[in-house]
C-alpha cells in the first residue's frame, strides 16, 4: 500500500551492507524514567563500542501515539535499526511493519511488542521466573504464613499483569497454602496514588504481612509508607525496584531484599543485538548466536510469540550488595 517514490533510491546508497556510519535507534516508554535512562545508556555504550551512532528517543508521555510518531520520524531518517520498549503489545504493529518493509531491523526489549512487529525480543528475564522468585522471596520473609497483597503499576501494564499471573500460579502450590493473596491494588505508577493504595491496604487488612510491588514506583512508595508508619518488621516489602531508590529501605529493613535486572546490561545487550541484525549477522531466527561485548555470547530462543534473547535471571539486591549498586542505577 505504500507508494515508494523517491525514497527507494535513497535507501540504496545508505544501505545496510557497510559497517560505516550505521545509526541505531532506541525508543523507551517515556522520558524521565530512571530505568529507561539507564537502559538507553547501556544501549548507547554498546553502539559506541561498535563505532556506530546511537539515537536515543522517548515520548514525553508513555503513549503508543507518541511512539508511533517517533518511529515515523526514524523511518524518514532511514535508520538501520529500531529497538523499541513498547507502550503496547499490539498497537505498534502497523508502524513497525512499515519500518521493516523499508528495510529497517526492528527488535523489542524489556516490554515486548507482538511477534509480527519485530524480529526478536530482548527479554530481561523469564516472566515465570520473575513471578516465582518474588513469591519464594515473600514466603521466606514471612515464614510461609499470612496475608500478602500486590501493588502493581497501571491495570494496563501487560508485563506486570503477566508476572502477576505467574505469581498466582505459583501460589497454588501446596508450599504456599498458608499464604493468602488478599488484594491486587494498582498505583498507576504515580507516587501519590501508590501511597494511597498502600495506606488503604494497611487499613483494610490489619494483619497484612507483606506487599509485593513488581514496579519501581510502587515498591518505593510502599516502602516509604511502611517506614513512615514505623511498621518495619511487621509488614515487609519486596518486588522489583531500583537499587538507588530502594537503598534506604533495604538498609532500614523494610525490604529485606528485592530484585531487578540490570537495565544497563539489558540496553547493552539490545545494542549488540541491533547491531548484529543490521549487519545481517543474525536474522532473529531460533538458533542464531551473537557476541554481546563484555556480556559474552547469546542465543536466540523460541517463545510463544516470536523469538527472544534472554538476559538472565533477575538480580537479588540485599543489604550486603546494595551499597555498591545504589550509585549505579
Amino acid at each position, binding site marked *: 500500500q505504500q507508494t515508494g517514490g523517491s525514497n527507494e533510491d535513497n535507501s540504496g546508497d545508505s544501505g545496510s551492507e557497510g559497517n560505516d556510519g550505521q545509526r541505531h535507534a532506541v525508543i523507551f516508554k*517515556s522520558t524521565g524514567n530512571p530505568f529507561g535512562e539507564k537502559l538507553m545508556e547501556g544501549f548507547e555504550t554498546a553502539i559506541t563500542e561498535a563505532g556506530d551512532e546511537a539515537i536515543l528517543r522517548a515520548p514525553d508521555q508513555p503513549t503508543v501515539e507518541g511512539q508511533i510518531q517517533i518511529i515515523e520520524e526514524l523511518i524518514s531518517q532511514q535508520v538501520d535499526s529500531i529497538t523499541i520498549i513498547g507502550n503496547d503489545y499490539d498497537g505498534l504493529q502497523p508502524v513497525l511493519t512499515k519500518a521493516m518493509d523499508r528495510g529497517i531491523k526492528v527488535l523489542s526489549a524489556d516490554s515486548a511488542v507482538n511477534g509480527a512487529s519485530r524480529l526478536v525480543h530482548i527479554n530481561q528475564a523469564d516472566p515465570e521466573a520473575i513471578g516465582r522468585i518474588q513469591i519464594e522471596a515473600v514466603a521466606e520473609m514471612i515464614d510461609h504464613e499470612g496475608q500478602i497483597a500486590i501493588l502493581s503499576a497501571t491495570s494496563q501494564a501487560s508485563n506486570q499483569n503477566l508476572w502477576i499471573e505467574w505469581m498466582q500460579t505459583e501460589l497454588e502450590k501446596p508450599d504456599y497454602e498458608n499464604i493468602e493473596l488478599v488484594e491486587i491494588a494498582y498505583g498507576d505508577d504515580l507516587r501519590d496514588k501508590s501511597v*494511597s493504595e498502600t*495506606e*488503604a491496604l494497611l487499613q*483494610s487488612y490489619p494483619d497484612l504481612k507483606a506487599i509485593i510491588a513488581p514496579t519501581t514506583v510502587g515498591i518505593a512508595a510502599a516502602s516509604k509508607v511502611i517506614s513512615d508508619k514505623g511498621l518495619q518488621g511487621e509488614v515487609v516489602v519486596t518486588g522489583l525496584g531500583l537499587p538507588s531508590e530502594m537503598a534506604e529501605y533495604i538498609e532500614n529493613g523494610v525490604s529485606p531484599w528485592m530484585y531487578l535486572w540490570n537495565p544497563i546490561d539489558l540496553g547493552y545487550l539490545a545494542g549488540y543485538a541491533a547491531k548484529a541484525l543490521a549487519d545481517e549477522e543474525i536474522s532473529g531466527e531460533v538458533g542464531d548466536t551473537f557476541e554481546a561485548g563484555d556480556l559474552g555470547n547469546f542465543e536466540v530462543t523460541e517463545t510463544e510469540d516470536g523469538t527472544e534473547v534472554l538476559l538472565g535471571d533477575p538480580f537479588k539486591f540485599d543489604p550486603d550488595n546494595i551499597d555498591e549498586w545504589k550509585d549505579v542505577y
Partner: protein
Amino acid sequence: MESNLIRYVSKFRELGLLGFIIILAIVIQFLNPAFLTLGNLSDMLKNTAILCILALGMMLVLVTRGIDLSIGATLALSGMITALTVSAYPGLSPFLAILLGIIVGSACGVILGLLVSKVGILPIIASLGLMNAFRGMTFWVGGGDWVSAYQMPDSFKGIATSNILGINTLVFIAIIIFLFFYYFVNNTITGRQIYALGSNPDSAKISGINANKVYMLVYTLMGGLSGLAGVLWVSKFASSQGDTASGYELTVIAACILGGVSINGGVGKVIGVLLGAFLLGVLDNGLPLINVSPFWQMGIEGVIILVAVLFNTEIKKKVEKNNRLRRVI
C-alpha cells in the same frame, strides 16, 4: 429567630457540597469500617494537604479570570532543584530547603506573571507554554537522573513526617496557609482587589487598581506555593524525578471548581476550595478502601464527581428559589 439561621445557611453556597461529602463518607464507612478511624483520617489529611495548598493559590488565579497550567511543572522543577541541593549539601537546614523551593517556584511564577501582565498573553497560553518549558527544564537540571531516598538527609525527609504541636507538619503548613488566605482574602485591601479585578477589569481600572500588580501578585503567590508544594512533595515521597506531579494541575483546578470557584472570575471562597479538595481527598482515600474492581474505580470516580456537581447546583437552585418565594408581593 429561625429565619436568621435559614438566611445564614442559604448564604453558604457550598452547602450541597458539604452535604455530599458527608453522605459519601457515610456510604464508604458502611462499606469499610476502617474508613472513619483516626489513623485513616490522618492519612487522608496528610495526602490532601498539598492539594489544599495548591488549590488555594489556584483559587486566586482563577478569581482574576486567569488559569495556571504550569503548576505541576513548577512543582517538579523546584522539587528537583531542592532535592539536588539537599543531596549535595546534606547539612542544609530544612527551613532553607523550603525557602529554596519557594524561591524557585516564585521565580517561575514571576515569569508567568510578567507574561500575563506586561506582555498581555492569555494566561492559558502562557501557562501552557511554560508548563512545557518548566517540565523540560526539570529533566534538564536533573540530567535525566533522579534523586532517591538514600541521597536525602533525614532532616529533609523529616519535613513531611514530623509533627508540630502534635499535628503533622504538612497538615500544619496547610492550616497556616488556609488561615492566611482566609484573612488575606476577606480582610485586606489587596485581597479584595483581586476579586474586584476579576469581577470587572474595566471598573478596576477606574477604581485605580493596578491590574498588573495584582496579576504579578497572584501568579507569584501561585508559583511560591507550587515551589513549597514541590519541597513537601519530594520530602513526602522521598523521591524526585522529571515526571513528578505530571498532570497534577488538572486535579488542582478540579478541586477549585468543585469548590465553587468560577472560571469567569470574581467568585471563589476559601472554604469552598477546601471542601473541593476534601471531596477529591475522600475519593482518593475511600475508593481503594471499598472493594471494587480497579477497572471500575475511574468510572465510579467520574460518576461521583458529576453527581456532586449536579447535587450542589440543585441545592443552590432550591435555596435561591426559596429566597425568592419568601418575598412578599
